[in-house]
């Protein structure tokens, strides 16, 4: 049986402060995630899709070096968390990475946790250290290890886009008009099974996907390419990430899309102009089936942050690599 349907909502885009440091990028995520209304003007406070974001300005006094996303109190029971962090200089102890080996100044790091405890009381983002395979930024639970996305060293971010649903978050940041940082995290894959080999005890699979660290931005064909794309995990450092917790375990498995496509056009509509929503499947690197993206569909070529409307009703938000040029597009269904 499929999991409950998610409802994706769009936050009002946030301009990244012109000074552009890892700290201002994290501040932009914090600002985006703490707005009281959605981009469509509806009230966000108290909504069942509203995540709560906290930020860490004490680990390195006076600057934001981590933001933590906490899900709304609906859906999942696994106490998942999303953390995005980074700094201009390396922490004292080597961090625990998913696959990277070295800290790079100002590069955004992202990780997910389940059964997580609190943040910032006894632990912080520097508590997940390479010397301990079970270490986590939180006071308890399992942690994925840090993945990377984007490269602040060469990028001057312009705008940050955030989308949220009951159980997952998607964040994109542009340099000019092109996405240079992107991640989706949380329970965004439905394993379509409740078997404990396929899903956690709450029926979910938790993980993240992020684009790689290059200066050219996300690929126009980011739903089909093996370059700077989403839903395409590899074990190679600095390449894209797509990882999921092994159900019932603290370890993670690499995932990738099952059905790559290379031909999504603006003409990909029905004969009468209706816009198709094509479900998207994920498999593990082993070739085993992982699940289906939740309320995220491949659709006709469109732009970043456009709305799909039916009459006066929002049906979803389009995710493209650019805010000015249409190519591969993921639709987040409202």
């Amino acid at each position, binding site marked *: 049986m499929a999991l409950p349907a998610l409802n994706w909502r769009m936050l009002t885009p946030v301009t990244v402060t012109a000074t552009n440091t890892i700290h201002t990028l994290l501040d932009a995520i914090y600002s985006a995630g703490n707005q009281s209304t959605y981009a469509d003007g509806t009230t966000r406070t108290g909504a069942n899709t509203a995540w709560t974001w906290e930020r860490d300005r004490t680990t390195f006094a006076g600057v934001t070096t981590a933001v933590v996303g906490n899900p709304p109190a609906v859906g999942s029971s696994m106490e998942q968390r999303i953390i995005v962090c980074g700094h201009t200089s390396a922490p004292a102890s080597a961090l625990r990475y998913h696959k990277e080996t070295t800290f790079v100044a100002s590069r955004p790091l992202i990780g997910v946790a389940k059964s997580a405890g609190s943040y910032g009381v006894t632990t912080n983002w520097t508590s997940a250290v390479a010397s301990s395979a079970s270490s986590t930024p939180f006071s308890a639970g399992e942690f994925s290890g840090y993945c990377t996305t984007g490269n602040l060293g060469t990028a001057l971010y312009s705008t940050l886009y955030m989308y949220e649903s009951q159980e997952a978050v998607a964040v994109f940041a542009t340099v000019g008009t092109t996405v240079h940082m992107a991640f989706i995290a949380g329970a965004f894959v439905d394993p379509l099974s409740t078997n404990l*080999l396929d899903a956690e005890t709450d029926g979910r699979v938790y993980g993240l996907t992020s684009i790689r660290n290059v200066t050219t931005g996300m690929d126009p064909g980011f739903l089909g390419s093996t370059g700077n794309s989403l839903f395409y995990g590899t074990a190679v450092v600095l390449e894209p990430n797509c990882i999921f917790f092994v159900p019932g375990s603290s370890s993670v498995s690499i995932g990738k899309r*099952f059905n790559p496509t290379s031909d999504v056009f603006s003409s990909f509509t029905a004969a*009468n102009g209706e816009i198709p929503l094509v479900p998207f499947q994920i498999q593990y690197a082993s070739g085993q*089936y992982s699940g289906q993206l939740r309320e995220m569909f491949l659709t006709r070529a469109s732009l970043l942050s456009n709305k799909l409307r039916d009459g006066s009703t929002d049906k979803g938000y389009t995710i493209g690599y650019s805010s000015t040029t249409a190519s591969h597009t993921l639709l987040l269904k409202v």
Partner: protein
Amino acid sequence: MLPPVTISSSSTAHGILDAIYQCGAQTTYVDGTLKSSSSVSWTWSKDNTNAINSGSTTAVYAGPTSPNPSLFGQRVIFAGSTSTPGAIKYLKSAGDTWASTKILMGSAVGRIAGAPGSYGTWSRLASDPNGGTPFTNGQFTGYISFGYYSGATTIMIFESQEAAAVFMLNSAGSILGACFSGAYVDPLSSDVLNAETDGRLYGLTSIGTFNSPGTTLPNNWLSAASGNNVLFESGSTGNASAYSCVFTPGSGSIKSWAKFMLYTTSSGFTSRSGNIPRIPIQVKYSTGNFCGQLRELYVTRSGAMGGALYELGTIHGYFVGAAGTAAAGEAILLKG
């Protein structure tokens, strides 16, 4: 699924057509249930009186036994002969011509009561006033290659309420000829630009005869970008390449389509617990427009051609795979 039938004589097209008829005319399905009490059965008939090769079977045709009266009438037809027919109607404008070494097939639909009517003759000329349909009225796709029959040993047929699938296999269980016919594409829309007035799209897919006789459906038929010799594709090489099409809603014209994505599967394509995934297949027109989603046909793990998927003693579907062994080739599941 009907019990597979062994071809008693594969030296001519007549023996192949006899086997198709024999397979379709059986009274029970492979699971032992009666066709007569089933809502999915098709009625199969044959023509062995055509003057081209009188006394031999030169055509086999079929349609749903108890069609839903709110739906359009439909037929599938297979034809072949040792002697050359006249200028019959072919599907492709460039022609996909008759040869004594191959079997032809086509689909017909009728949008009026009783259509597409009774069988007339398969060899009706394209120039005939009724447009070359083998039936008394309705629209006909025209003929396309079903496959070369050299080396064929077995016929396998699957039926559903609104579509049928026929396969011609060699001794290894590999596919020499294959087609689906009927309303097996769901347009997921009732708009009359997207669907017939009964909400369906009617058409066919066939692997064609682009390759030489004896060539079988390749193991990578779901992931191959080539449109030749595979299902759910429309080849770009003209005559005899694989072809998939539907009738343009409300029209007698044809629109070709192909699968929207490429799918690479293996015998290990299961969930961690061993559950077998069922991935829906979307198809798009050659114009790039969305066409629809295949009905109860799913990409799944590798499976032996014709093998049943059992769950707790119940058949949940049948595999259509490239090989007679489970280990090789990509496969789809026909949901039972």
